[in-house]
């Protein structure tokens, strides 16, 4: 009958998709214990309008804390509130997200509670008193099975691993007061600057088109952007070589020191497939590679490959995708 805590990540007054994934992951744990999911939602006044979405994905109780001090991410006040709710709630596990916000928040909360935590969790299971999780290590070349014996176990799930499931509950909202004064936090987010290099973010897009050195020059990246546009639901990514050369912002980099992505479809354009790049995208569901070198390592992980000149193949592919998507 143990209950599970979940943190519902929001940005700028909107729930992030990972919030629904987090609720879904918490729901699977709660179903195995016969317990409830209690989701914490913090934000500026008005964020409560999002509580219904959390109930639709399996939150039995939404713990709602609205305060002007939560208009931007407030790491100290959010960690203090989350830790207090988790401590007082007797939860078996607390589920966060492995995002910039979650990687900032979850360790603060775990440290306040004096409990262990594992981030980037790709599988979870309660076995008796122990939460057992899967966690990729060494850029995904090893998978660790890790036991968290402490209660509550704090984990952060990997985005795009737990598909948000509709499991509507009669979720009720309980309002909560902040711990202390959120305006007194020492770390203050003064401004949120939207936007990386592309129109759609890598974390949210079901399709990613990524470009590498094979494009030869910054201006040729428009081939990648046009292919992404043709899909209509694609984000643009890049390799480290490309971001180091300043063709694209660092925030677009996919790989060991960049973003980890797992879209439904990943199209690698002029990317040879250095191990550091593969680390960021090898968990994509379907991988397509276009490269003129038939021996490029990218073809070892790609489901479908076309050997050829990107300047010839990509425009043809863009036209064909536009044609195929007519009527969408």
């Amino acid at each position: 009958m143990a209950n599970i805590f979940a943190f519902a990540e929001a940005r700028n007054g909107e729930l992030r998709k990972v919030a629904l994934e987090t609720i879904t992951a918490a729901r699977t744990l709660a179903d195995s214990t016969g317990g409830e999911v209690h989701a914490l939602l913090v934000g500026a006044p008005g964020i409560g309008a999002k509580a219904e979405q959390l109930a639709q994905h399996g939150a039995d109780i939404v713990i709602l804390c609205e305060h002007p001090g939560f208009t931007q991410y407030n790491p100290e006040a959010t960690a203090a509130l989350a830790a207090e709710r988790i401590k007082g709630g007797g939860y078996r596990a607390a589920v966060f997200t492995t995002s910039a916000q979650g990687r900032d928040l979850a360790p603060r909360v775990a440290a306040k509670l004096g409990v262990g935590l594992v981030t980037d969790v790709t599988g979870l299971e309660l076995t008796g008193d122990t939460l057992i999780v899967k966690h990729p290590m060494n850029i995904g070349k090893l998978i660790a099975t890790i036991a968290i014996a402490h209660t509550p176990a704090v984990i952060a799930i990997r985005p795009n691993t737990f598909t948000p499931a509709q499991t509507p509950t009669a979720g009720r909202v309980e309002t909560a007061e902040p711990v202390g004064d959120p305006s007194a936090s020492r770390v203050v987010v003064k401004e949120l600057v939207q936007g990386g290099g592309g129109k759609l973010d890598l974390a949210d897009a079901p399709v990613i088109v990524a470009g590498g050195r094979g494009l030869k020059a910054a201006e040729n990246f428009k081939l990648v952007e046009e292919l992404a546009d043709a899909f209509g639901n694609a984000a643009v990514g890049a390799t480290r070589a490309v971001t180091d050369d300043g063709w694209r912002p660092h925030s677009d980099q996919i790989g060991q020191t960049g973003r980890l992505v797992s879209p439904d479809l990943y199209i690698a354009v002029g990317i040879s497939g250095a191990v550091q790049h593969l680390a960021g995208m090898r968990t994509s569901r379907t991988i397509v590679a276009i490269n003129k070198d038939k021996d490029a390592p990218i073809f070892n992980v790609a489901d479908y490959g076309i050997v050829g000149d990107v300047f010839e193949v990509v425009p043809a592919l863009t036209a064909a995708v536009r044609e195929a998507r007519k009527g969408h």
Partner: protein
Amino acid sequence: MKIAVCIKRVPDMDVRFRIGADGTSLDDSGLKYDINDFDAWAVEAALQLKEKAGQGEVVILSLGPDAAAETIRKALSMGADRGIHLKTDRIPFDGFAIASALVSELKDGGYDLIFFGKMSPDSSNGVVGPIVAELLGLPCVTAISKLDIADGKGTAKRELEGAQEIVEFPLPAVLTVDEGLNTARYPSLKGIMAAKKKPLDVKPATLGENKVTVQKLELPPERAAGRIIGEGSAAVPDLIKALQTEAKVL
């Protein structure tokens, strides 16, 4: 300005890893090790702040086996002033245990800033910096890609998914470094010679209790071999068909 930088020695990822006989650790024979990229950028950030201030001290901390001393020497050869090696045969996975050992060394150090890389590619947990901050009661900003320090205050840019935050914080503080903040300098020959004479204290690490335990390491399932559809734009129609009928993503 007194700055600590916590660094880790990590294996080169460009190899096929083998699992040790115990099933829970890496067989490290034949692996090449170097400073974690994110940590090298953290060292660079500390050196730039000291150079800008015209005074101060940059202290390198690393927890690990004997060979961690090499990694500390590398940071010293970049220009850091001295090193502290917290010795342990094996670095635990548990971020809390690691953070506890670092905190026992850092707590009375009087540091204005404590830098970490935002994560390391081997354990891929990325939690030690914020746990250290919490245990020390210090403000913490993670994943920074821009930094200005003036008048006892800092302004940083944090990298989010598809956005950035502009963050202000008071000193002393803990910062974790993301890519894009700087480019780490290479040690000069002069720096390498000078590093040999710089002080490096070796102490046993007082690790905290492990709260999480690696039970098993395994290789991930191999991706099923894909297929080359064809050459040049002539292959595009077949690719479209495969995406529609097999992968069902179009």
